[in-house]
């Protein structure tokens, strides 16, 4: 279930999260030449990238301030994902698919509409390897 797949920033699961998505993409280059004896491309991967998007309702003043400070900072942060269980579904289970790496908070949106929950959306662009 989705509540057991969570994004982590630093060592903690993003609190009050409602959704997260992880994207890993490979850039490819066609290396087919005149020597290729058919019409098919021969794509080879030249580089890889990843990003994590997480939406949450954690609109406490310290959390929001910390996010804006993180956006302003040049420092990268550890971002990852894992299967979770236990208290508040926040305990990492070290699942086989769990990975983490350094990332840049490159998009932050704080939406505060009348009579609805304040919604926070953060996107992290991975920089360097996942492990």
């Amino acid at each position, binding site marked *: 279930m989705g509540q057991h797949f969570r994004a982590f920033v630093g060592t903690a699961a993003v609190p009050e999260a409602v959704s997260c998505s992880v994207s890993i993409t490979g850039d490819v280059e066609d290396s087919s030449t005149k020597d290729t004896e058919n019409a098919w491309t021969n794509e080879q991967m030249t580089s890889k*990238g990843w990003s994590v998007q997480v939406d949450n309702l954690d609109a406490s003043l310290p959390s929001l301030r910390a996010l*804006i*400070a993180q956006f302003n900072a040049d420092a990268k942060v550890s971002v990852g994902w894992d299967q979770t269980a236990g208290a508040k579904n926040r305990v990492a289970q070290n699942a086989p698919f769990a990975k983490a790496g350094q990332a840049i908070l490159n998009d932050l949106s704080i*939406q*505060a509409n009348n*009579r609805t929950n304040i919604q926070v959306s953060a996107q992290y662009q*991975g*920089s*360097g390897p996942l492990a």
Partner: protein
Amino acid sequence: MDKGQHLRLIFTPSDHNFFVALATDLTLHLSASTENSTTKDSSDSDGNWNEYDVTQRSGDIQFAGLIAVGTDDAAGESYLLDDIDVSDTVMSWKLAFVSGDNNRTIGKTLCSGSGKITSLTMEGTNRQKATYRGQMNIYGAVAVGSD
């Protein structure tokens, strides 16, 4: 959960607080442009992962509210639609948590900065409230509140 009406956009010319009156929606959006900084010196053994650095930060604030004529602003604490215009003028602002009657008791500041209002749209649909929407592009840095 904190509700949206408890976080308000306040214009702060000359350190005076002007609420956006009859406000309904508010979104702060911050975006960082990044550039691929992978070079020949980057390790091949790490799986050819791209490395990025931030090259530019920008942001905007989108706000919306109701259009009302003759709204009493005797206290002189509000920005109504006629106070808001698309202009090259830099305006100072802050986003602050609020409480109390009409959600106009200012609490802690989330963040503050300057900006220019770059778009304003108004809508008047039959039998519905007339509304407006504005966007202010952030000019310079956003400071995190420290009060």
